[in-house]
């Protein structure tokens, strides 16, 4: 996996994030890579957050519309 690439989607991002975190928890990441990994994780979190917000917005919009249809 190319860490620097934009993730394919939330799920891919989340999976990557989880693997980063696992690696962190397993102490598999050295200090040299740490900052970079954390950065990547932060990017992924931001990406996921963004995606969540977008999805929420869309869902809310759909639900709002659906609600109006009553």
């Amino acid at each position, binding site marked *: 996996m190319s860490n620097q690439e934009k993730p394919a989607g939330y799920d891919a991002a989340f999976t990557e994030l989880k693997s*980063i*975190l696992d690696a*962190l928890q397993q*102490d598999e990441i050295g*200090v040299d890579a*740490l900052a970079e990994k954390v950065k990547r*994780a*932060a990017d992924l979190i931001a990406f996921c957050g963004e995606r969540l917000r977008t*999805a929420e917005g869309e*869902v809310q919009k759909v639900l709002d519309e659906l609600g109006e249809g009553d």
Partner: protein
Amino acid sequence: MTSSSSIPSSAGNPGTERKVYPLSKVTAAVSAMLKEQVGSKLFWVRAEISQCGFKNGHAYLDLVEEQEGKRMAQLKGTIWSSQVAVIRKALGNEFDEVLKPGREIVFSAHMAFHAVWGFSLNIQHIDLDILLGEMERRRKATLEALSKEGAIGRNGRLELAIVPQRLILIGSKGTAGFTDFLAHLKSNVWGYGMDIGVVDVPVQGAQAPGALVSALHRAGRVALRTAVDAVVVLRGGGAKLDLDVFNDLTLCRTIAAMDIPVLVGVGHETDQTLVDVVAHTACKTPTAVADFVIERMSEFEGAVGREGRAIAAEAKSQLSENRGFIAQSSTFIRERPLAMVRGQRGLLFTGANAVVRRTRTLLSEQQNLMGRIRTAVNAAATGIQLTRRTALEELQRQLSREAQRQLRQQEERMGNLKGTLALLGPEPTLKRGFSITRKQGQAVRRAADLRPGDVIVTQLADGEVQSTVDALQTNETDT
């Protein structure tokens, strides 16, 4: 009487010397002869009255004797007025019935001759008893004969028409009985019409039986040509003597032999005539015969009426039943179909309502289901989002925590390493008083490596001391 007939025959005798007498001589001779031969002697004579007239109280009769329609004798008879009174007294009510044409009488008489009026019988008494006695005797004999012949009841066994409407009436036109009979029939209150053929015959006198028989035969012939219900033989009221006609054997035989019922109305009060015995039905008077006929017709019409009324009643009852059924049908047909339509409308309405209710229920269920699904989708979506957000936040926290932990751990390790390094370096040893001796910068590990005089630098904890080696001493064990 044979002597009187000899006069014309002798007078007509040819070849005799003609002596001519004046007529009076002849009558005088006849008168003398009669007087001498008969005188005032009374004779009993039987004769029939053919003519009867009264003049100045005297009765003048024409007397005849007939056998089988042939006139055998004829004489004048006179009853002088004094004797008329006597006879009238003796006969009483019968007088008028006896002294009339057609009547056979037995009488006592003088023979009388008159030069102008001629021969006559001067009647003194009329003896009915002889006639009646003879009559009774003959009647009994005839009855016996009829009985032997089986004539009695024969006609009576014939079935009389239920409506004896077509009649042949045998009687003497103009007599009271005849007229009464017809009048009675005509004036019937029911208005029945009669079909009557009349055979006019004398019903008294010597020729009466023959005439009646002949009339009956005619009736029989008529019956061959057209329907005849009955023959009615009538005789009005009259003298007992006249009844003898109706005891005539031939007449009775004829009646008995008739194929048509014979109804008789021979007026009499007590005794039956033999005609009454042999006839189908005998009534006392012609009027009674008329009543009999009318009553029979009326009974028939009554019976017809009863049948008719029974038929009408029965029919009415059956029709009324049917009328009732038709009325019920009419009521039923007025009510039932409309009730049925109303019922169907109710069913349709119920069905339609059920469709509506059921469909609404189904739709409402579906709508509720949709609502629930929408809520569930909403909840699930929200839940997913929340879970994801929470997870993300958790990850973020873990990331922060782990990164910092990592850094802290490294720092700690670094610190430890630093400590270890400090312990492992020479300084702690030097501080405890150990020192490092170097010769020309090289640490001296063995005493043997030194030579006295060597300049050595001794490193102490807090500085170096430069010295020169004075002496050497080695430890054997160290090698």
